[in-house]
């Protein structure tokens, strides 16, 4: 190897070491773990290899619950947040006054600590013996009866979860869609106006197709992100998610790894691989749909 080549590799050593130890090696290791049965993290021994870890995880009621929770969360929040984001972005890009102010406000949740603001959401939705909480006051105002969103029925908890998730993911989506809308060449709009096209038709026939790649991008990242939900859930329901019945797949992985029910890296690895397989499948399906819809349009 000549000196010039040596130099290139020399500059890359730090990155290679860090990536090798903390990304590449773990990638293989997690697969190894997932097939080691009865792994004991204290003695670092195991008594066999096989698919037992996977079948254990798939039969674990906590995992089933986590799977169900995650899927519900994904199915509700991804379309909802993308839809609202589209609505807001279109509104945002059609105004001139105060546009920057609104943009700044809408982006704020991105830079806030999810755990910290989750606490505020919990307070807002909580019902305790001392107070019904702010949200329940609004429900009262409209004639409903109060519900404990944090410790109450499943659908109530899921509602808070979804609302908070939408609140958290919105800034990114609004930002991406607003810049996508801004990058549409205004000549298209002018041309359409000259032809006397109605605003709705302009939106449906010009704007939407032009920004559809970005919408697809948001849907895909949205799916991936929502499948990995964890921090937001902890923020609202605390660390003991299994007890709250609100665990997610990622939460299950971490609980298996560490914490009160922890110490099972093999189960954690199996669950993580299952999650990865799900995300990969969904992403591929999304890409297929995108390709087809691009071809037909």
């Amino acid at each position, binding site marked *: *190897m000549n000196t*010039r080549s040596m*130099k*290139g*590799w020399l*500059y*890359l050593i*730090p*990155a290679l070491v*860090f990536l090798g*130890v*903390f*990304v590449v090696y*773990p*990638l293989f*290791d*997690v697969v190894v773990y997932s097939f080691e049965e009865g792994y004991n*993290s204290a003695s670092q021994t195991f008594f066999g290899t096989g698919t037992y870890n996977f079948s254990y995880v798939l039969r674990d009621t906590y995992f089933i619950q986590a799977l169900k929770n995650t899927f519900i969360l994904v199915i509700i929040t991804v379309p909802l947040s993308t839809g*609202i984001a589209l609505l807001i972005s279109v*509104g*945002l890009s*059609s*105004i001139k006054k105060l546009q920057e102010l609104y943009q700044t*406000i*809408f*982006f*704020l949740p*991105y*830079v806030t600590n*999810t*755990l*910290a*603001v989750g*606490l*505020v*959401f919990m*307070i*807002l939705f909580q019902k305790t013996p*001392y*107070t019904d909480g702010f949200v329940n006051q609004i429900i009262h105002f409209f004639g409903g009866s109060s519900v404990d969103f944090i410790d109450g029925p499943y659908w109530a908890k899921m509602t808070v979860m979804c609302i908070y998730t939408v609140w958290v*993911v*919105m*800034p*990114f989506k609004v930002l991406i869609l607003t*810049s996508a809308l801004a990058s549409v060449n205004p000549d298209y709009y002018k041309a359409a106006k000259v032809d006397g096209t109605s*605003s709705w038709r302009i939106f449906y026939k010009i704007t939407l197709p032009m920004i559809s790649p970005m919408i697809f991008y948001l849907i895909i*990242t*949205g799916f991936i992100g*929502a499948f990995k939900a964890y*921090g937001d859930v902890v923020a609202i329901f605390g*660390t003991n998610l299994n007890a709250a019945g609100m665990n997610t797949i990622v939460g299950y992985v971490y609980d298996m*790894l*560490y914490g009160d029910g922890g110490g099972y*890296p093999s189960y*954690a*690895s199996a669950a*993580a*691989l299952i999650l*990865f397989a799900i*995300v990969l499948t969904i992403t591929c399906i999304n890409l297929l749909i995108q390709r087809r819809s691009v071809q037909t349009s």
Partner: protein
Amino acid sequence: MSNMTQEQEHRAFVRGQRIRTAVIYTLLTLWAFIVLFPFYWMVLTSIKSYSAYNAEYVPQLYTLAPTMQNYVDAFTAVPLARYFMNTVIFTSVTTALMLVVIVLAAFAFSRLDFAGRGLLFTAFLSLMMIPNELVIITNFVTITNWGLRNTFTGLILPSVTSVFYIYLLKENFDQIPDDLYKAAKVDGCSDFKYLTNVMIPICRPTIVTVVLLKVIECWNSYVWPRLITDNQLYFLVSNGIQEIRENGFGRENVPAMMAAVVVISVPLIVMFLIFRKKIMEGVSRGGTKG
């Protein structure tokens, strides 16, 4: 006659426009309210006294007797200052180390010609697809085996590299014209000096963006610190806030909790207001969250 209809049509059009504008502003204001209300609520609650807060069966939307007592409690009853300092140390060291690593790597990929460069870069890019959840299990075991639990080293090491930032910076380095490098060679400038005296200053905007994004990421990191620390001395703010929530002020002291939330939220919000344009531009270029 036809003039009349035209004028009427025009009026109808203007009225339609006005209604549309009104609807848009209402919608935007509504969402702005939803975004801002939690912030308002946390500040409001943090300045209500403990007794006043608990006496409100119907939560009040304002307070006439603001108090700073909760902030005092937040810093004295729980080690909030400690969490805060830990996070500052963690964030600055991680970001600094990351900068060194990614600048060197991006420079090698962009400027140095070596055997296997293209292949290695492709391999790097493919690492971007690996979800953190997949590698964190082994990292947890690795750090535990190295005896680095409850240390800053253990917290920092796995957070140092980011393939995405290497990619971002490399793209930026690539935009510097070749002639500049040749000119520097003619001027007797070494490769390393070219990096430090020419490339880094030219690409400063991108580097600042990367730093800002990394600071946000570090400040809000929760999962890894949670796995690797169980000693309060090494808690970061995210874990701290969770700790405060679960075993914090002895009993449910919501105002003090909100004071803590305000304290840990303020630095990032201030940073955001200062670097608003840069952060939003950086995120739209490739941040992900959601």
